[in-house]
């Protein structure tokens, strides 16, 4: 820790909020907050969902833009970009959601390593720190596992490692243990305690939904409706309200009208009916990994059946098999007496399912989501409206009916999901962690609903949870570990069997017996690395830039399909297009309408049929025939020979032959016209020669010299043009999702909260794709000169330099689209239209740029493809070098910084 950090920690508050206001639409997330948080403590934020806890933490971390008020962190204002950059190496922020700021395809080690590099740590330092962090969190043996294959608890530990790698003075954790099983949760807090023991100066801010966890914090902030209700230690808060537990204390702190009808839950006794859910020897294998093995279950009608287990033990997989989403590898599941079949629509109408992650439409309003499901379940319109109104009231959704779930806190989204699951009045409800991330009050509401459904309506409930007090309310529970069910009985019975006073102890005892509690406690003595603060680099840092490049390259390597598409795909395209684009118009279909039918007329037409440009169709019978066949597109040209053609010709009288052109494709019509005129002239000369015995003396001749491509081979001229095309479409599409995907999936937060600058981020992301595109360029070049045998006459160095500038510009173009759009779909569409149109139409592929007009000419003048086409054509066909083509290199050189600056200006370094 730096000297200033130590001074800041002991001298005054670590965070000071004054008059803070923050608004999303109609919701006030911060309503004039004044708050000072003591340094060196573990500070908890408690309160219901959607009251603003996450927004406050985001504002403190500098990830969100301040709307109004003051946020001072570590002795400076977070509204000041310079201060933000200076202190962000001392802050670590772990957002809500399991592993949201991790990179799923990167391994555990690589994820931490990436963050280490961002903070400019040397290789030796990183390796030492990562080894220590992994040992402390028990992740050592999983160092090579991709983050996406980790269980929820492990993801959170990894997230913590990533946060701690740079020794922050302020650690901000937004609901770090939500959705994490009790064992992992316990390990997580033990880890935090050890870290704090080693670094007493570190301040920790935590938002949590677990009141029992909050009991152990030093200092609490009770939050409601964007305001501070109370602050103080847990003991102080309890003393002030005269409550026994923190939960009660919090309820007492709430204003009268918000306290509503909160009463302890009572669960009427169960009168269980017939077996509704039955599983026999269920097994699910993914490859050689057995996710679920030999599961036997019997759940009776109206029963509340709890399904418990550590993260990643196979609970969700089992539930997917019970809903029919996943056909089991072996065994049989029966629902309501029928063998599950994914295609059985009738069964699905009687089941309600709620998946662990939010799986409704985030872009539709709450109301539209409910209405859509009412329609899908075929509720009559009047009943549906009444039902939706009822659910909105029961699930307290009325205030947010017209909001989009995307903008709502987790807890409210979970309520919406449950409302959707029960909308159609199902017989069976299958709920996968429905209360994860939901605040205690709302959770009790939720359970009241579940109990009512079970006891009053006889709905069978199959539920998973990580909350032991919820498990306690179930009629029976099953404990699952590593794909197998360890025990299954009423909660009290299980506790008695283990001699445990609390269900949590019983649960952990079962897991430990099954080998679940791996010896993953690192020795606390080893502890954390000695604090060695990374220099708070405020200027441009090549190391940070390269750490983004490295990460992007690793992700690309992990996606062999994308690599193959980029390399092999472009070679195939070159083959197809090199052979396919053909400007030589050949085999034009023509037919003759011969009114004369004389020897002369036949001779005339014979000359045309001898040309390779034309292929003859059966003769025309009449004008009507001609119209019909032209209209059907069967003829490009019709030739009409007038009656008396032969006679007139013999007498030396002038006669007229008509050519009818199909003008629907101007290029073709034009070329046909030119060809026919040529053939016609030839016929005249021959006729004259025959009549007079000597060729007529012309006035003057024109020698036409076709240069650069004397045989007019399409391939020779097309291949050098196809290379620039492929090097705009594929590189820009490779980068097009670079930024928007991070926005959609959440890892953009790392850009907000680490010292990386926008330019470092953008160029860092771009570098691997420039390298890949250059490799692609070399491949295409080799293909052109070997397979296509296109002669290369000019300077390769010039072409290669041009290609380097060009792919830098085209990858930059993709990034620009990516920063402008907000969804991946829009980024793909935007990149397609932004490259296909200008590159094919305005860059000189078909028509030289000099012949274009209007907007097209303007685009053609600046678009990189136009300049690289000149370079490619010039070096391939015209034996040109640097001196001749410098004029085309310059615009490419200019395009690079222009694109990067535009992207940097459009990219936000904070969320709104």
């Amino acid at each position, binding site marked *: 820790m730096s000297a200033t950090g130590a001074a800041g920690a002991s001298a005054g508050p670590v965070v000071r909020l004054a008059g803070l206001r923050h608004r999303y639409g109609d919701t006030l997330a911060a309503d004039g907050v004044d708050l000072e948080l003591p340094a060196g403590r573990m500070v908890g934020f408690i309160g219901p969902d959607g009251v603003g806890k996450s927004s406050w933490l985001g504002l403190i971390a500098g990830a969100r833009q301040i709307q109004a008020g003051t946020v001072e962190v570590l002795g400076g204002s977070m509204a000041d970009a310079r201060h933000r950059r200076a202190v962000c190496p001392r802050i670590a922020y772990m957002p809500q959601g399991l592993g949201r700021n991790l990179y799923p395809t990167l391994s555990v080690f690589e994820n931490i390593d990436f963050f280490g590099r961002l903070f400019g740590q040397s290789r030796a330092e990183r390796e030492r720190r990562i080894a220590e962090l992994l040992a402390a969190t028990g992740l050592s043996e999983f160092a090579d596992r991709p983050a996406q294959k980790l269980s929820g608890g492990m993801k959170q530990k990894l997230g913590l490692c990533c946060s701690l790698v740079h020794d922050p003075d302020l650690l901000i954790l937004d609901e770090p243990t939500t959705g994490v099983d009790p064992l992992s949760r316990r390990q997580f807090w033990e880890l935090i305690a050890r870290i704090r023991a080693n670094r007493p100066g570190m301040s920790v801010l935590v938002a949590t939904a677990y009141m029992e966890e909050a009991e152990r914090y030093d200092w609490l902030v009770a939050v409601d409706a964007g305001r501070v209700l109370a602050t103080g230690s847990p003991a102080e808060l309890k003393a002030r309200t005269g409550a026994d537990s923190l939960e009660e204390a919090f309820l007492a702190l709430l204003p009268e009208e918000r306290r509503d009808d909160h009463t302890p839950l009572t669960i009427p006794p169960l009168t269980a009916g017939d077996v509704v859910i039955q599983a026999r020897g269920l097994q699910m294998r993914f490859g050689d990994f057995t996710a679920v093995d030999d599961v036997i279950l019997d759940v009776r009608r109206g029963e509340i059946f709890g399904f418990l287990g550590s993260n990643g033990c196979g609970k969700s997989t089992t539930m997917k098999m019970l809903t029919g989403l996943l056909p089991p590898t072996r065994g049989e599941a029966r629902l309501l007496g029928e063998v599950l079949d994914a295609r059985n629509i009738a069964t699905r109408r009687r*089941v309600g399912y709620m998946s662990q992650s939010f799986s409704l439409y985030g872009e539709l309003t709450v109301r539209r989501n409910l209405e*859509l499901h009412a329609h*899908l379940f075929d509720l009559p319109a009047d009943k549906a409206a009444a039902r939706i109104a009822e659910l909105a009231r029961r699930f307290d959704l009325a205030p947010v009916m017209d909001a989009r779930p995307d903008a709502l806190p987790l807890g409210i989204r979970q309520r919406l999901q449950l409302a959707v699951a029960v909308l159609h009045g199902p017989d069976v409800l299958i709920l996968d962690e429905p209360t994860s991330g939901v605040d205690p009050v709302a959770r009790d509401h939720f359970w009241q609903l579940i109990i009512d459904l079970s006891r009053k309506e006889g709905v069978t409930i199959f539920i998973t949870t990580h909350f032991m007090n919820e498990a306690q309310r179930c009629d029976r529970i099953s404990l699952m570990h590593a794909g197998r069910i360890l025990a299954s009985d009423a909660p009290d019975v299980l506790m008695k069997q283990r001699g445990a006073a609390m269900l949590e102890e019983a649960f952990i005892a079962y897991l430990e017996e099954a080998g679940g509690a791996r010896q993953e406690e690192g020795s606390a003595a080893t502890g954390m690395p000695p604090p060695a603060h990374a220099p708070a680099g405020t200027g441009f840092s090549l190391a940070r830039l390269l750490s983004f490049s490295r990460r992007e390259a690793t992700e690309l390597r992990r996606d062999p399909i994308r690599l193959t598409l980029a390399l092999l795909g472009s070679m195939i395209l070159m083959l197809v297009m090199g052979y396919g*684009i053909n400007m030589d118009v050949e085999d034009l279909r023509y037919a003759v309408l011969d009114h004369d039918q004389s020897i002369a007329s036949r001779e005339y037409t014979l000359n045309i049929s001898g040309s390779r440009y034309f292929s003859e169709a059966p003769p025309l019978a009449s004008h009507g025939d001609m119209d019909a066949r032209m*209209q059907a597109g069967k003829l490009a040209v019709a030739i009409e020979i007038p009656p008396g053609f032969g006679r007139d010709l013999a007498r030396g009288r*002038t006669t007229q032959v008509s050519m009818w052109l199909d003008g629907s494709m101007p*290029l073709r019509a034009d070329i046909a016209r030119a060809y026919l005129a040529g053939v016609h002239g030839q016929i005249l000369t021959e006729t004259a020669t025959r009549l007079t015995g000597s060729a007529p003396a012309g006035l003057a001749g024109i020698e*036409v010299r076709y240069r650069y491509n004397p045989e007019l081979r399409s391939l020779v001229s097309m291949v050098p043009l196809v290379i620039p095309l492929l090097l705009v479409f594929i590189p820009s599409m490779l980068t097009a999702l670079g930024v928007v995907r991070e926005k959609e999936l959440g890892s953009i937060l790392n850009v907000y909260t680490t010292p990386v600058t926008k330019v470092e981020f953008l160029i860092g992301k771009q570098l691997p794709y420039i390298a890949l595109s250059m490799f692609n360029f070399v491949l295409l070049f080799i293909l052109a000169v070997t397979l296509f045998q296109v002669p290369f006459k000019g300077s390769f160095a010039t072409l290669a330099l041009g290609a380097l500038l060009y792919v830098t510009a085209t990858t930059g173009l993709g990034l620009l689209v990516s920063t402008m759009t907000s969804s991946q779909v829009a980024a793909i*569409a935007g990149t397609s239209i932004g490259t*296909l149109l200008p590159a094919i139409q305005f860059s000189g592929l078909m028509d030289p740029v000099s012949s274009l007009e209007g907007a097209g000419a303007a685009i053609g003048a600046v678009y990189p493809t136009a300049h690289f086409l000149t370079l490619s054509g010039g070096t391939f066909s015209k034996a040109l070098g640097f001196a001749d083509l410098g004029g085309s290199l310059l615009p490419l050189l200019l395009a690079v910084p222009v694109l990067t600056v535009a992207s940097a200006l459009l990219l936000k370094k904070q969320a709104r």
Partner: protein
Amino acid sequence: MSNGARDLLRNTWHLGLKEFSSLAGDMALMFIIVFMFSASIYADARARPETLHRASIAVVDEDGSQLSSRIIAALHPPQFITPEMVSLDDMDRGMDAGRHTFVLDIPPGFQRDVLAGRAPALQLNVDATRQSQAQTGAGYIQSIVGEEIRAFAQRSRPAAVPPVELVQRTLFNPNLSNAWFSAVTAIINNVTMLGILLTGAALIREREHGTIEHLLVMPVTPLEIMLSKVWSMGVVVLLASSFSLQVVVKGIIGAQVAGSAVLFGLCTFLYLFAASSIGIFMGTVARSMPQFGLMAILVLLPLQILSGAMTPFESMPGIIQALMSLLPTTHYVALAQAVLFRGAGLALIWPQLAMVAVIGTVFFALAHHRLRQTIGTMQS
């Protein structure tokens, strides 16, 4: 059974309406769609030159005679950019840099030799890598120059009238206006692009957000999910393209479209069915949005360039013709040209229409099969 059909229709209808709401929420995407069918079409049509247009030509006048200046004056806009006078030495450099597509060299003593009946030769240098202008341009120049020489010479001796004249009559697009053609081609290209992208990307988005899995535990079948995407996105693109045809192409660009807009709409809708089936099929093959994006480029590029909308289909190599005939775009291009330019009716075009329908059905069936197959293995 009729109950099942009713469910199918109802679910397909409501899921389709959902797609509209999603689209309406994505402002950037809406903007792109509007742009593609308005400004983009207009710019494309207006930029493309009329057949031979503003070809860049330079003249090396070594004669400096009355005849040579007459020839130079005859090479004028709009076919040519006013000729640049260059020296023999500069000729090569100008062509190398791509500044001149044509350079005409008039040798010393040209006029004298013409009048003396010595039949001298001019030299026309053509940049043959500019394929689109090389041949037609050379033809133009030859006939213009020939005409000027003849007219000049006629003052001194009578010319023979050719015994047979070739009269040109152009059907369907009398002025061979490239703007009309480009505009229609641009519509075709954009219909293809959006037809494939919107549905395919929407499917991947649902997979990445886990909403597909959610739909499948409800009484909704993969068939309904697919149909809903096909019809809703079909309607969006159909409306946008019809608007573009009526307002931008007919109204602003002033193309005379011969055929029935309704028939063209029918063709477009059938084609969209085929294109969006291809999109969904790609959506089931690609595992993530970045993969889908690349795949889209690899599919769109040949569809745009090789389907006969840019260069004549009959001139392509046989194997390419055979391959491209298996894709709906080739037939749609033929349909669009037949209906819009040649005013063809249903009686003439039904074979192509049937091909589009058949190809669409095959892709739809393939996509349906893949979607059902991949659902089980999908990671949420």
